[in-house]
């Protein structure tokens, strides 16, 4: 709040140091998200999605600029959302891509307001899921996210939901919460929960909706 966090600056200055301690924890199986922090550059295996066309990459309207999620995070959510939302996503490929891309944009926008502390926690979580070694050892997801099938993504979410390790439950809640709220909370998908939206008489009568 007052000064740059000493840990942060050290991490960005000496990524190798972090890498070493990170590898140790990863291999040793000590699963503390708190000790794992990989800089975006380290995890940068951002190969173009092979298995799946990037919904975000093929957006018709790319006016939204991502400010928190990096390319790897976007790929992660492109792989997770089909399992996360499941049959809630439209089947028609273009509509589906638009729904996925829009949801990822809203996830990004939502996280911006989370503030530095929770952003740091999410950065750790996403880096851990994106970095190949921890993806395999901790999330037990064998393929790169672009090649992960919906069934595999669902199995991963189920593992973290049912795990007896609180940290994984916490990760599950973090991932589902940001995704569910960004999806079901958006007007385009209100119909899925039978929510008609704000009462029409009120909208018609209230000055703040009167755009004239």
């Amino acid at each position, binding site marked *: *709040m*007052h000064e740059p*966090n*000493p*840990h942060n600056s050290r991490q960005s200055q000496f990524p190798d140091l972090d890498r070493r301690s990170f590898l140790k924890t990863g291999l040793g199986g000590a699963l503390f998200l708190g000790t794992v922090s990989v800089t975006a550059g380290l995890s940068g295996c951002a190969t173009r999605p092979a298995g799946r066309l990037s919904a975000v990459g093929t957006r018709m309207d790319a006016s939204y600029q991502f400010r928190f999620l990096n390319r790897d995070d976007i790929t992660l959510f492109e792989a997770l959302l089909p*399992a*996360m*939302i*499941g*049959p*809630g996503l439209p089947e028609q490929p273009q509509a589906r891509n638009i729904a996925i891309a829009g949801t990822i944009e*809203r996830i990004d*926008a*939502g*996280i*911006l*307001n*989370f*503030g*530095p*502390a*929770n952003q740091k*926690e999410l950065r750790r979580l996403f880096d851990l899921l994106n970095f190949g070694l921890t993806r395999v050892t901790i999330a037990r997801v064998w393929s790169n996210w672009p090649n992960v099938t919906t069934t595999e993504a*669902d199995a991963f*979410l189920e593992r973290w*939901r*049912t795990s007896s390790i*609180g940290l994984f*439950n*916490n990760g*599950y*809640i*973090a991932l*589902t*919460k940001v*995704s*569910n*709220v*960004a*999806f*079901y*909370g*958006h007007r385009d*998908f*209100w119909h*899925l*929960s*039978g*929510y008609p939206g*704000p*009462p029409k008489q*009120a*909208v018609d009568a*209230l*000055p*703040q*909706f*009167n755009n004239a």
Partner: protein
Amino acid sequence: MSLTDRIAQGLESGWKVTDGASLTGNLTTEADVVVVGTGAGGGTTAEILARNGLSVILVEEGRLYYQKDFKMDELTSYANLYQEGMSRVTRDGAIAILQGRCVGGSTTVNWTSSFRTPEATLNYWADQFGLDDLRPAAMAPWFNGREERHNVALWQVDPNVNNDILRQGCEKLGYSWKIIPRNVKGCWNLGYCGVGCPTNAKQGALMTTIPGALDNNARLFHSLRADKLVMNQDRIDHLQATAFASDGITPTGVTVTLKARHFVVAASAIGSPGLLLRSDIPDPHQRIGKRSFIHPVNASVAQMPQRVDPFYGAPQSIYSDEFNFRNGVDGPVGYKLEVPPLHPGMSSGVIPGHGETQINNMTGLPHMQSVIALLRDGFHPESPGGTVSLRDDGSPVLDYPVTDYLWTGLREAFHTMVEIQFAAGAEKVRLMHLDSNWYHTLADAKAAINRLPMEPHRVRLFTAHQMGGCGMGINPENSVVNSFGEHHHVSNLSVHDASVFPTSIGANPQLSVYALSARNSSRLANKLVN
């Protein structure tokens, strides 16, 4: 358009309101009193001091949002009006913390339930913490006064179905239930209190005490965070604050220095102890941040045969205190039963699940009913509360260990909630628990409740009522302030918000905050004027 917005009018008429984002250079200014926080406590304090002719500066870290911004939209409201964009949690992530961050504080997003502090709570404080001057008879005039100021009255309209199911269930089982008093004026019964009242009906700080203070020449800085109270010998000399850009989160680097004769901290539980800790306020017995309480909440949802439309209608109108004080004030933990509003974003974030299961949960929303139990924490040795401390970056964080005493209460509350829902005709119920299925019979639900692990993360826990951390008491060894909110060690520092409660309240806290702040501000005004 017959509607007139109090805030728009006031700004037009020349209220002294400064958006921190608009400051281009550092600034130093001065008043009789600086009040940190503009919620239930801060608003009350500012209005009373300003009406007594004192010059007042209000400092609010959130931004000024009002009618023009309240469009009944969850996503924008959660992002802008809540602490940490609605992502605030306890340090281990196990408890979601709902708390306001905007002008008006949590009262801008609260659900308008207005209860007096239960008599048993006030008497417990007198007996345990020496707060004899806060006994029910002494507090009664302050409650009366605040009920008038905030237009508190029993809700006259029929409860929505969501609330009525709580009533019906209690009725069938012979449990007591009552109608909730609400602080509203001309309420449209819409159900959007949690995202900023779009009609200005809610009589929270934003529509009452904040305009009252500004009409009386108070000055408001919003988008400005109080960072540090700076002492000069045994008194606070000034407050250091930093401005945020118009996104409400990016510091602009502009610093504001505020000097005053007296400082009132009303940044609420978590916020106030955080500020005191950052400021290294004398704390010989290390009490700051200790005994932080939250009314831990667990929840159950039911699928009803009839339409519930839990997103419409006054969010809370019925409650049951059947189990709140049943075991005495300090026995096994008691809980108050209420109902939460369910909008799609909130519901999808609160009901844990993904994929097909989740879409099935969500499809049922129009028929969904929910009951919540609010546990009365802090009245038993095995409920010592949590601790607020500072992260590396200086921001406050709450550790709240859930003790076995509380787990027992949570399990019991699950039983009660599903009993009520089935008694009211539920087709099936689901606990807010990672391992819960939908249960079609009471027997199945109860068997599951007995079997399911009561563990952090697995049981979904929430709090919308943060209390304590700067507790009141006569003994400086176990408290931070006295019954007037005056700091034990620093003579020009007071705390006027929910953080002074030495236990939880045992009822939704806003009226307790309003009343105690009114009492303590009147005393402070007297002292400063003379």
